[in-house]
């Protein structure tokens, strides 16, 4: 038995296949993020930039919603 296989045996069991239920979405074809995209979600300088952008967008939306 290789090292890898013995590690796998020691790891907690993976969940059983979800039972198929009516309405359950099958295997999704939606795009999955690349590791780089996932990393950028917690990259502090980039997120500070996004924070500023999100706030500016919300401020614009609030201004437009409040002008009546």
């Amino acid at each position, binding site marked *: 038995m290789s090292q890898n296989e013995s590690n796998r045996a020691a790891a907690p069991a993976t969940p059983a296949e*979800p039972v198929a239920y*009516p309405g359950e*979405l099958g295997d999704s074809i939606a795009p*999955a993020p690349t590791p780089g995209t996932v990393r950028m979600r917690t990259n502090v300088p*980039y997120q500070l930039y996004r924070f500023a952008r999100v706030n500016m967008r*919300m401020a614009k939306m*609030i201004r437009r*919603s409040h002008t009546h």
Partner: protein
Amino acid sequence: MARVVVLGAGISGHTAALHLRRKLRREHEVVVVSPNADYNWIPSNIWVGVGRMTSQQVTFPLAPVYRRKKIDFRQARAVSIRPEGTGSSGRPTVEIEYTLPGRAGELEQVEYDYLINATGPKLNFAATPGLGPDGGHSLSVCTADHAAETAVRFAEVIAKLEAGERQRLVIGVGHGMCTCEGAAFEYAFNVEHELRTRGLRDRAEVIYLTNEHELGDFGVGGMTFEQNGFVTNSQLWTESLFRERDVTAIVGAHVQRVEEGKIFYETLQGEEGVLEFDFAMLLPPFKGQDLHAFDRSGQDITDVLFAPNGFLKVDADYTPKPYEDWRASDWPSTYANPTYGNVFGVGIAFAPPHQISRPRKTAGGTVITPAPPRTGMPSGLMGRQVALSIVDMIQAGATAPTRTASMSSMGAACVASAGAGVFKGTAASMTMFPVVPDRESYPEHGRSLQDTTGEIGLAGHWVKHFLHYMFIYKAKALPGWSLIPE
């Protein structure tokens, strides 16, 4: 001297009361009638439900705020409205029943010149047998108390997972006509994040059970975004997130009943299923509070003031018409009742003219369509605009409402934020403008592509925490509160 009575001290009613008091001269009275002693910043109940906050962090007592602001607070629930007054007096009244300890059950007639119904939703757990924490088999995060109870049950699930057991967690909505899918999505996102950061995700199956016909509908018919040079939509965005987080989704579902550890449901395709669970947080459908109305002679005129679902009729176009004929202009803007112009309905309490999502039903006739959401920002804005209209009617001689706040010309934000700490959290954030698609102004997608967005990352987590503290500060009416937008 005029008296304005506000029913309900939630997001819309509390906002209305504070603006009324800010703008009305002292000789005019502002009365707030609400059954709970505390204000609850409901969006943060999500964090209470996973044990990241206590219920004390999302509530505060209303009485000291109203005392300081010279607003007359009566801890009571409204029971009925007499918009033409009673036999002896032509002055309209609302009957209230005290819930204040020591006066509980006492009835009182409160006269008004203007009335704002901001009583929010009645949590209609009764619509689905076995639904809800009070005598049912599922949990809720709709109130701070419900969320605190849910947190205890979630902690038990975590303990079992830590002991090596497998657990199935079902999160979603408990009826085909529910609204607030954004909140269910947010709670699912939080639960998944908590399990993963604790290293327990591989033993937990997380299932999202929703009445939306596809993921990303959110009761607003989905959204179209522009991202990295492509036009994409909230369906792909949500599916991508669920795929990444290994959340199984069951869509187009109406929960028929909930039993101990079992959810019975049917789907838009007409199939029936039974889902076993260890933990289920299912939001209830909403209806209006059971308020009644009587004319001067005592005749029941509840159907003049209220739609059959208990929400107050306002200046919307309620003519039944097919989906293709729905217009942004069907949606109300002044929130005045067409029969009694001094009665207003704001926030969740007003009757929407129709859904925003396309109506759908099963071959057997079960309606499975999200009801339209009336989220925090629109609710607050309606409260403010109606308050300012009333001020103009009392003090500037206006004969009709002067301010508008149509959901077809205002935006909304939904930020699902999870995790603790400044750098360890995450969030899925969506903004949309306008809430109700306006195909005349935005022929292609019904909404502005620039202002309708979805993104994932720490930035939204910071925004959500910032909003939590800012809105609680504002609701406490601390210095400068009125500068903070709704």
